[in-house]
């Protein structure tokens, strides 16, 4: 990544409690308290924000333009400079980061939300696949992840005990995460789709998250210890599983390289791995050693509001830096079947 024209930091992060079913609240009602929370942390008002960007998917709630109603939660009056990505909010953060780099704005509000409860997520995600050759077969998201897990086992790159250990560590870590629905040790349970057991799979839930970005001295004024984005990059792989090596994640490796993740070691990583087996793939792609604390929040295995889960990884990593618990952290987000698309951000506190 070339030298950045401007230093940009995460200055605040907020999230909802993530629940299995939020049928009593609309998307706007789910988002609004989170936006108030994140703004309160900086003392900013909605009208002080230079650029706003959100991430969500129409397919989750089952309605077109779901983001237009969520905009009501922002209070977009007078009119605001605003955009939206139809994917995880981590990519909304990327778009906002670019907007701040141009100098057209000094602050950005990024939010994401997901309401998976109206449908069956495993079935819904099949609509994300090649509509001609793959989607007609309805291979669900757990089945595809199970193919990836089996490939790892067959290659001798992991074993079921290691997968169980990832699940146990994640849920134990989530004991301290008041927003997570799955806290504390849980049994691995039966196979959902072999070799993946109940404990290997992320919960499916509803929730929202928001982040505020600010540039340069503005960031220092808004936050005692801003989490500076030293690099951020994202890459996509081919869609067809048949042409990919599912035991590796070259797009994660490349994005990490471009984000400068390998320039110096990180002490913490928040990885967007909805399946224990995907954490194994990501650790290898990111060359994370045993000394790196992985997913102290519990990660996606403890709380998984789809379309916000990736943004939460950046928020959680930034919050640890702001609290002085990390000096240099990596945050990762993913999209698509079997880690098809990946984003990596490197965050640092000022020493």
């Amino acid at each position: 990544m070339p030298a950045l024209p401007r230093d940009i930091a995460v200055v605040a992060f907020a999230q909802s409690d993530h629940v299995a079913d939020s049928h009593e609240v609309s998307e706007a009602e789910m988002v609004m308290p989170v936006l108030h929370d994140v703004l309160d942390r900086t003392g900013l008002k909605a009208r002080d924000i230079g650029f706003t960007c959100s991430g969500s998917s129409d397919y989750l709630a089952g309605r077109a333009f779901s983001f237009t109603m969520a905009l009501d939660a922002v209070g977009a009056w007078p009119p605001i400079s605003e955009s939206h990505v139809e994917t995880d909010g981590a990519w909304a953060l990327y778009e906002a980061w670019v907007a701040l780099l141009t100098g057209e704005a000094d602050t950005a509000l990024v939010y994401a939300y997901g309401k998976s409860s109206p449908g069956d997520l495993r079935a819904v995600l099949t609509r994300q696949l090649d509509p001609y050759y793959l989607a007609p077969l309805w291979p669900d998201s757990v089945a595809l992840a199970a193919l990836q897990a089996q490939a790892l086992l067959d290659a001798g790159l992991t074993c079921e005990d290691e997968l169980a250990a990832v699940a146990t560590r994640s849920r134990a870590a989530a004991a301290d995460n008041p927003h997570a629905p799955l806290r504390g040790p849980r049994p691995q349970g039966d196979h959902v789709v072999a070799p993946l057991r109940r404990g290997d799979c992320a919960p499916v839930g509803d929730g929202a998250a928001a982040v505020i970005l600010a540039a340069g001295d503005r960031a220092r004024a808004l936050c005692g210890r801003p989490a500076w984005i030293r690099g951020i990059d994202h890459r996509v792989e081919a869609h067809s599983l048949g042409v990919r090596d599912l035991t590796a994640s070259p797009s994660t490796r490349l994005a990490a390289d471009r984000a400068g993740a390998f320039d110096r070691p990180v002490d913490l990583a928040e990885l967007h791995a909805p399946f224990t087996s995907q954490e194994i793939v990501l650790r290898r792609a990111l060359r994370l050693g045993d000394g790196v604390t992985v997913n102290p929040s519990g990660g996606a295995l403890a709380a998984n509001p789809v379309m916000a889960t990736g943004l939460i990884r950046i928020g959680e990593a930034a919050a640890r830096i702001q609290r002085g618990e990390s000096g240099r952290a990596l945050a990762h987000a993913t999209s698509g079947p079997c880690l098809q698309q990946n984003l990596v951000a490197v965050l640092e506190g000022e020493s």
Partner: protein
Amino acid sequence: MSKEPVAVVGIGQTAHVAARRDVSLAGLVREAARRALDDAALDWRDIDAVVLGKAPDFFEGVMMPELFLADALGAVGKPLLRVHTAGSVGGSTALVAANLVAARVHRAVLTLAFEKQSESNAMWGLSLPIPFQQPLLAGAGGFFAPHVRAYMRRSKAPDTIGSLVAYKDRRNALKNPYAHLHEADLTLEKVQSSPMLWDPIRYSETCPSSDGACAMVLTDRTGAARSPHPPAWLHGGAMRSEPTLFAGKDFVSPRAGRDCAADVYRQAGITDPRREIDAVEMYVPFSWYEPMWLENLGFAAEGEGWKLTESGVTALDGDLPVNPSGGVLSTNPIGASGMLRFAEAALQVRGRAGDHQIDGARRALGHAYGGGAQFFSMWLVGADRPE
């Protein structure tokens, strides 16, 4: 800190028709992308990143189709970003791509927008089911017709203005080989006697449902210097949003549209848009939106926009040609319609618009809007590199 100047060096679009049964979704986007690359004399390997836009995924029944289109877009191993801002998305997508160059994150970006509306029924796709919305509306026309009526009442415009816009745009489309509708035998009388769909909007005053895609290659000064054809330079670009419904919202002339145009003119140093802009490609899905947007965008005073239409100022040979390409009224692949406006504006200042070229166009405005007249994206492009 200064932004890198952004140049449009490649533009490509597909033939737009009601149903492109000859191509898959991948084939459709590939066709537009390849033409944009050819125009720029570049190849897939020259592209650093891809930014894709389209309107609701339900239109094709594919959730986040950029994932499956990664191969067709030559994006494997590259950053691929998906934008969705309702009907304004084609414009917003181009602006997101432009920012990547302006911020010097990338040097050459392919941006593309598409819709293959034949895969579904757009009217019902846009009619949200309960519990999301009261069951009063049938498609976008049902939503916008009352606001057109409000404009007619407010401005005291003659009832015929809408038909003049529709007739003009459909005639312009005859000069655009890519346009969906080529109605050579259309007359003004036929427009005025076509069936009433959503009073006061008649069938011939309504946009079609199209399959199509549009692509552009955006690059920096170095890339522009290598371009075989004159580039279009970005002089200003902005997005503005406001809520769908709220007490006091002006649906006839939304403040978000006015603010967006003011921001673009400020960036471009435009103080008198009526005199300083040579051609306009604005998002007119229903004919009456031409006079409404002429006022919203500052080309006419409030209540006066229809007079420009009536007196022929917005015709191909007028002094402020609006939608020389035939506009959305002649071609409407929804997700791509905004990018087509941006691309047609760029074609004008590059002098590459073919039979619908406006002689001597140096500065042109591309405009898109979406949602409940609440999302706006615009850019102003010029033949000269900005200072």
